[in-house]
């Protein structure tokens, strides 16, 4: 058998000393213009065989470029200028051909739907080997073997459309593993998955890493370090210019360079963050502990500390995690530009703002004016017979900041569409300020609602930034009322851009801010956001949340749907949880909700410490 595998190149003998990857002064410029800004420049690093690397950095920092370089898309499929060299197993990439390189290096991208080609799981996994013209018998054996190993053998004859997101991503992972790559790149593999699917995939990844049979080097591109930091050895962080900002082994970086890591626009593991803040207060006690990175460490943490220090840790935990993290930053909103202020300013009624700030009228946080109310709301997609939304009744007050959670397919997006009057409910009523929204003038209700879609490009329609911002007002017939000053402020918020620039040429974060500008231009009262955090870096998330925070302080109602519990814990004030069948599971204040959901890390630690303190 082994001989057969060697014959078909399934097994390649590699000595353990040569690094799997070695970037030497690597730079790459896209396109034909040599003077263009390089996507990545001066990359120098080695990855040993069998090591697991986390590659992080803000969007547009060249992470994907590096991954393309590793598996041969650069230089064989993309046009550009390459400087320096990249060696794969001691051989320059120029000495490989495209086929050899893409066999050695596999690349799994973030959205499983974009990568699936065939209709059944078995065909999908076999796809690569079929292309390599392996004999059928060997393909069948290998497909069975890998499916058994990754625990999806029961899915082999299923249609791909019937799988969950996590199972789809696992199928793609298998379809690369079956070709026996030496290096596997996972480009944000969990970005599109809900909690359940995410833990399924991470569990199987861990199984893969621990197994001695698959001697793989793994490169994981991810913003949320906490998800992957447990099984990685090395970390490489790029900055906006595509140069290396930080590299080293995980333990070293966590111990000595944590502040640098935090400043790199990546989402650091919260527990290490807590530990680090604790170390600042009490270096002595913290020095005795090992640096915690995972759940197991977390459970041990309270046992190792005496009571006084535990009290300190408790306080640190509350400050860093449970309280909205950036609340102090946001408290200074008076100096920050608010869309609302600019709007009123543009009407040249500056005194109105000052009076409002003085009288505290903006702080409508705990206001009791119901702005939206649903009664027995049901929704069924035509011809499906399945209720996407099932008998929902709740009230939303003006100034609420609400997180909408639930597993994939529980109807979060549908509910937002219903609230925005984009779908018509099958039964039940939605009230806006005690008025049925179906009775409100069709032009007036959309003006009250600002809807931010998951993909920023889904809401860009016009060829220039200016026209794009004015898209709403023109449709509502209020473009004459929008003052020139306001528009220029809105354009400023996107960044230093010309107003006739094509919106598609903006960066991802800028597109997101353009989306905000183009809804704030008509001053909506309610802002609905559908999964705005997917695949965004810390900087984009921060600026988005900051904007929302300021607007919320000004009395705007905000509803965010997301499966990122961690962000919701920090930023929202209330949580609506939906069941799988679209019914209401829970509607409570943020604090109560998370205290009851004891499987979330910070809450677990909080409860543990409380218990421990109680015992003492």
């Amino acid at each position, binding site marked *: 058998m082994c001989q057969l595998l060697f014959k078909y190149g399934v097994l390649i003998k590699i000595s353990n000393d040569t690094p799997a990857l070695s970037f030497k002064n690597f730079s790459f410029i896209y396109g034909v213009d040599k003077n263009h800004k390089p996507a990545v420049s001066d990359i120098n690093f080695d990855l040993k065989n069998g090591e697991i690397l986390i590659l992080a950095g803000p969007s547009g920092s060249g992470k994907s470029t590096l991954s393309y370089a590793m598996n041969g898309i650069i230089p064989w499929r993309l046009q550009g200028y390459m400087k320096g060299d990249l060696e794969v197993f001691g051989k320059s990439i120029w000495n490989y051909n495209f086929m050899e390189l893409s066999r050695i290096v596999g690349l799994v991208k973030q959205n499983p739907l*974009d*990568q*699936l080609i065939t209709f059944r799981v078995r065909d999908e996994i076999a796809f690569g080997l*079929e*292309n390599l013209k392996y004999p*059928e018998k060997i*393909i*069948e054996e290998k497909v069975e073997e890998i499916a058994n190993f990754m625990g999806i053998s029961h899915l082999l004859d299923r249609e791909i459309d019937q799988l969950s997101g996590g199972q789809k991503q696992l199928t793609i992972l298998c*379809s690369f593993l079956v070709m026996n790559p030496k290096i596997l790149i996972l480009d944000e593999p969990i970005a599109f998955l809900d909690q359940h699917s995410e833990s399924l995939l991470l569990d199987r990844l861990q199984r893969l890493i621990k197994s001695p049979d698959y001697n793989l080097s793994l490169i994981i591109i991810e913003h949320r370090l906490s998800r992957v930091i447990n099984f990685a050895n090395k970390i490489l962080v790029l900055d906006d210019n595509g140069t290396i900002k930080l590299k080293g082994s995980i333990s070293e970086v966590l111990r000595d360079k944590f502040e640098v890591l935090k400043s790199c626009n990546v989402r650091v593991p919260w527990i290490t963050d807590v530990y680090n803040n604790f170390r600042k207060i009490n270096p002595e006690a913290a020095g005795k502990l090992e640096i915690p990175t995972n759940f197991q460490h977390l459970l041990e943490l309270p046992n190792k500390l005496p009571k006084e220090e535990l009290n300190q840790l408790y306080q640190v935990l509350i400050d860093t995690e449970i309280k909205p993290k950036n609340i102090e930053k946001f408290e200074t909103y008076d100096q920050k530009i608010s869309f609302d202020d600019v709007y009123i300013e543009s009407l040249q009624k500056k005194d109105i703002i000052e009076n409002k700030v003085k009288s505290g009228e903006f702080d409508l946080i705990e206001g009791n004016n119901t702005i939206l109310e649903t009664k027995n709301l049901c929704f069924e997609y035509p011809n499906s017979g399945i209720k996407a939304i099932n008998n929902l009744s709740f009230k939303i007050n003006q100034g609420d900041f609400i997180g909408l959670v639930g597993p994939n397919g529980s109807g979060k997006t549908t509910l937002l569409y219903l609230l925005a009057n984009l779908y018509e409910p099958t039964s039940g009523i939605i009230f806006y300020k005690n008025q049925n929204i179906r009775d409100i003038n069709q032009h007036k209700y959309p003006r009250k609602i600002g809807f931010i879609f998951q993909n920023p490009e*889904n809401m860009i329609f016009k060829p220039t930034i200016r026209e794009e911002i004015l898209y709403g007002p023109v449709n509502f017939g209020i473009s004459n009322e929008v003052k020139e000053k306001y528009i220029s402020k809105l354009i400023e918020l996107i960044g230093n851009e010309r107003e006739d620039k094509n919106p598609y040429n903006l960066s991802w974060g800028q597109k997101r801010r353009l989306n905000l500008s183009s809804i704030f231009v008509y001053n909506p009262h309610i802002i609905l956001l559908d999964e705005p955090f997917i695949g965004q870096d810390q900087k984009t998330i921060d600026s988005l949340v900051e904007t929302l925070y300021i607007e919320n302080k000004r009395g705007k109602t905000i509803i965010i749907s997301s499966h990122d519990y961690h962000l919701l814990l920090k930023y929202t004030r209330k949580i609506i949880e939906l069941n799988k069948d679209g019914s209401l599971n829970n509607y409570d204040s943020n604090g109560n909700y998370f205290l009851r959901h004891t499987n979330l890390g910070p809450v677990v630690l909080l409860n543990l410490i409380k218990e421990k303190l109680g015992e003492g």
Partner: protein
Amino acid sequence: MFAYVPGNSIFHKLNPISKLIFLILLTTIVLVVNSILFLAIIFLIVFSLAMLSGIKLKLLFRKLRYIFMILIVSVILNIFFNAIPSEDEVILFYLFGQKFLPIRRLAVYFALKAFFMVLILFTSSIIYTYTVDMRDFVYSLMKLKIPYRYCYALMVGIRYIPLIEQEAKTISLAQRARGFGYERVNTIRKAYNLVFERLIATLITILRKAYVTSISMENRCFGIYKDRTNLVKISFKLKDIIFIIFWFFVFSLVILYLLQLLPIPQFPSLYSIYLDTF
């Protein structure tokens, strides 16, 4: 209207290629036959084949209802307006008075012929899509030695249909969320905006997706050799061969008959019946 439904009928068990050949032969027959009587008989045969492949009568009518509506309108319009006026043409009657809106005999003939042709073509296509898994269809194209790159292009295309639908829907909702599309589209400018904004936004998202798909395929060594192993086997069974031979036989009979090479008296075409009787 066209969706595959798994089943166990004889038609389901046949090879997609043999069914495709049947479809092509049938279409050719329908296009060359002149007699409405003949077309009606073919329609009955196709109709019974539909029953044989497990399509319920109600479902078939539901699938065909829009076609029926369009056909009825087209038959009426055809009868009123479509006929090549000539001197020896027979006018059946006038709809109004003695001189207004003549109903020509030829027009009735053409209208009925078009009606049956469209009906047969749609019913047979429904049978085909009802019984053929698109996956099998693509693999059988490969079996026919069509270069696998084109077959996979088709496969990815089929996979993309729901994705494109989803994106287009989201984008139209995004337009509505910002106040577009509530009014009636009553100017060319608005129609232009409606279509082009939506089209361009959808196209850009789909192109981005297609880029990822192509990278994913290339990474799995797609297109390296001129041929590839195919795990999925689409086999020709005895019943496929019998099926194909049978339909070729029927086809050649019809052609021979139409060329008047068979020693059977000619079926009077309905047109000729018209000419003789009226």
